[in-house]
């Protein structure tokens, strides 16, 4: 290839990338829906399959069928609830924080965004969300972070909770990777350090995931390591229910070109089912 050809090829690739970036940066936020109102999106109680109160500091596991929804209700504004997801049919496919952020051009994952696996597929959609402040960069607490923060490495923490939860599925440490922490208003300051937005969390906040494939779910109800104040995690409520099927114009499925392609990779797994 001549030097001119190479320069032309590089320039063409650059233009294509800039078009994709402009679409990802500018289009998607306009297309995203507003946050759910705290008194909005009532549950249809006869469609609830399971309810669990997860005490502060504890973990829980659940299986979701494609189409089922998991609502996490932060009844007492506890700061941080970590979640990890596996494809129930093949646990080597799992939540990928890096792809989830990179594919959607953002570390912010409010209502309207989706959670990607490492296989270019959508594990779950964020269909309801009253808070819009979730952290996929820093993750959960560890014995070391509890020691640094509270002077006590023995406090319950997300690293160990995730290992316990994984073990209940017959999985282990190798099956875990970076988690998403809901109700965790972490942001990156201009100098690269992390900040925590105060006054964002309120009692009664909830986030609801719609399973886009059959899932194994691990939940750790421990404070985000950057949350201010004493170690005092409060109970949350987890509700599994059968919500309505997504409509053709479902926002999570159509908000971005990347989401559309993610579902084009996901839906064939379930074609004809």
């Amino acid at each position, binding site marked *: 290839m001549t030097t001119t050809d*190479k320069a032309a*090829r*590089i320039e063409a*690739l*650059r233009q*294509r*990338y800039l078009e*994709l*970036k402009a679409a*990802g*940066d500018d289009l998607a936020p306009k297309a995203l829906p507003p946050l759910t109102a705290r008194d909005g999106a009532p549950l249809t109680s006869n469609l609830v399959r399971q309810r669990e109160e997860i005490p502060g500091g504890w973990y829980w596991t659940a299986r979701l069928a494609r189409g089922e929804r998991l609502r996490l209700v932060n009844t007492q504004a506890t700061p941080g609830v970590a979640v990890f997801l596996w494809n129930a049919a093949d646990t*080597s496919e799992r939540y*990928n*924080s*890096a*792809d989830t*952020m*990179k*594919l959607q*051009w*953002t*570390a*912010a994952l409010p209502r309207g965004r989706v959670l*990607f696996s*490492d*296989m*270019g*597929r959508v594990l779950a959609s964020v269909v309801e969300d009253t808070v819009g402040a979730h952290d996929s*960069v*820093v*993750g*959960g607490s*560890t*014995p*070391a*972070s509890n020691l640094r923060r509270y002077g006590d490495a023995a406090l319950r923490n997300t*690293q160990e909770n995730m290992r316990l939860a994984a073990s209940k599925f017959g999985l*282990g*440490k*190798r*099956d*875990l*990777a*970076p*988690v998403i922490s809901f109700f965790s208003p972490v*942001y*990156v*300051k*201009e*100098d*690269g*350090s*992390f*900040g925590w937005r105060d006054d964002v969390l309120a009692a009664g906040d909830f986030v609801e995931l719609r399973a886009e494939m059959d899932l194994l779910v691990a939940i750790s109800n421990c404070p985000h*390591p950057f949350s201010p104040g004493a170690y005092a995690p409060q109970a949350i409520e987890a509700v599994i229910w059968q919500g309505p099927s997504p409509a053709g114009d479902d926002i999570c499925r159509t908000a971005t070109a*990347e989401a559309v*392609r*993610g579902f*084009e*990779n996901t839906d064939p797994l379930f074609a004809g089912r």
Partner: protein
Amino acid sequence: MTFICTPTENLDPAKAVHDFTIAATRPWSHVIKRGQIFRIVDVEGCQAVDTLFYRAGDFSERYSAQDTLLAQGSAYVTTGTRLLSNEGNVMLTVVADSCGRHDTSAGACSCEANTVRFGHHTRYMHACRENFVVEVTKWGMTKRDVVPNINFFMNVPIDPDGRLAIVDGISAPGAHVDMVAEMDVLAVISNCPQVNNPCNGFDPTPVRVLIWDGEAA
């Protein structure tokens, strides 16, 4: 825990115990012993070097991007960053960095993610996760062991509102990053083959890896 801080600028490549050029798009792996100094050189500049570390002797302990960011309280990797494992142990410490910024949030490219990012026509293009899987398989691991990695020389600024993008590289030809191994580690590199975003300037180029014994410094 030892924290070795070594001036590494004057290390002589002729005295390296390992000196290897990873061709554009190719993988590499090697065990680095505790106390050794590991240098990655961005030979021609603007090349992303996707890197994972595993504890030698127990690969279930491996690099953890979230533990690293949590412990240092900053979103980017540079001089002074301690690279932590999923057990909270320091695997390596970055002791010199002529680039100034490396990413550990955006992970590796894959055939599957490429279809989502760039279109289905990119499925059959070589990708970092393919490199990682091929390389870790040599050590008895599988795709299950591949986790979000460090991207040396890759610039992925994250705005306060969360906006995130891979932007033009800031590493000049010959830019390098030096790390001291704080335990025996298996280092696995994918010299990123991506041509659809600026992480390699749309044109992958070789990188060089050197390892010195600690007393060489």
